């Protein structure tokens, strides 16, 4: 049953490592994608729609407009692939949760910024079993009731062959 889906939450920076094609990280992310795909819907990656905007922030640094359009289309294939990813809409429930987290963090002497809070609240809303990020979110793990760690895969996939930097 779909309601038994296990949700793995990814911060925007995990996607950015994948889009950057960083050689030391790609095999791990690729292996996680493949693990999710092989689970046939029992496991999925989730992220807030905010990730789309944060990715676009880096994407703007690309040179020409035509190049940007092509890049945009290829990035969209990532967001649209619902065999592995679901985007979490930002809504009132997540806003209230994020507000509460910001308040909690303050009482503990931390500063939790709105964008971080939206990601964490989204992960909590879907009851993610694990959150992956390359940022230092470890101090927030008790707010989300699940481990926060950098991506790691039990079975790493072989790197894909690339032609002119386009994976095939």
């Amino acid at each position, binding site marked *: *049953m*779909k*309601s038994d*889906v296990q*949700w793995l939450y990814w*911060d*925007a*920076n995990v996607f*950015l*490592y*994948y*889009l*950057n*094609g*960083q050689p030391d990280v*790609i095999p791990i992310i*690729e292996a996680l*994608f493949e693990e999710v*795909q092989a689970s046939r819907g029992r496991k999925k990656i*989730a992220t807030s729609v905010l990730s789309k905007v*944060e990715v676009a*922030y*880096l*994407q703007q*640094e*690309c*040179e020409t407009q035509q190049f940007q359009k092509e*890049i945009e289309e*290829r*990035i969209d*294939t*990532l967001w*649209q*692939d*619902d*065999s*592995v*990813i*679901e985007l*979490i*809409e930002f*809504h*009132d*429930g*997540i806003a*209230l949760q994020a507000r509460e987290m910001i308040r909690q963090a303050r009482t503990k002497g931390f500063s939790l*910024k*709105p*964008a*971080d809070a939206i990601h964490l609240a989204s992960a909590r*809303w*879907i009851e993610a079993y694990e959150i992956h*990020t*390359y*940022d230092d979110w470890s101090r927030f793990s008790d707010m989300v009731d699940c481990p926060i760690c950098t991506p790691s895969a039990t079975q790493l996939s072989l790197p*894909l062959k*690339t032609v002119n*930097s*386009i*994976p095939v």
Partner: protein
Amino acid sequence: MGTNMMREDSLVLALEGEISLEAFAQAIKHFQSLVHALTKEISPQAPITWHIEDLQGASAVTTVCGSSSDSQAVPGVVSGFWVVGQSLQRKQVIPYSEAVRRPALALAQNLDNSIRAIKFETHLGEAVIAVQPQEEEITGKTFAWGQVKGIAQTLSSRRGLKLTLYDPIFDRPILCFLREDQQEMMRGVWGKRVSVIGKIGRESEKKRAVVVFDIQQIEILPPSLPGSYRQARGVLAQSAKPHPEKILRRLRDEE
């Protein structure tokens, strides 16, 4: 009954829902007043006798048939009845006198927890005055404009136009209420992944989306090929900067 199978001298009033005897009696009273007022207004010179042609208990369908010495009289009233139904459905002014408007509006106001929809049917077409969302569909929920995505599983025109989406996160149904004039939006969506933009009602505790009203748009989402995410791998390599988390941290920390 399909409108193309209907006789040209017949009017049908169909009530949908769990109809109580009292609600049925009230509706029939208003129906009788409406037909009477329309007859007087449209055909004052040629009296029409309206008699029961058919009664179907299960869905409270009443068919009446008119007969008159003037061949133009009955078609005129049938057409007037159709216009009244359409005006109510579109929430437009009924283009007849107060004597016609009063019972017509009373009929429409009969919609409650018992009667969920009223259908005016003639050989010219049908008009449905749909129920407003039930109180339990509104109470205890928070509403905000937004978008929900899911697989369109059930389409229904009983008791108003409804589309049931199954959201991919919780696999729970989201009931989307459409207006009668939005029937076109439902075309071709069954079984497809769609996005619905409207006023989204969320349950109070878990804040899962459960209903959508005031729908502005239903869009069929393009199907994606499993594994197509790979096309995005390394796409930003040419402009790549190390440590995306540091760039995002700067962005998130900006005051």
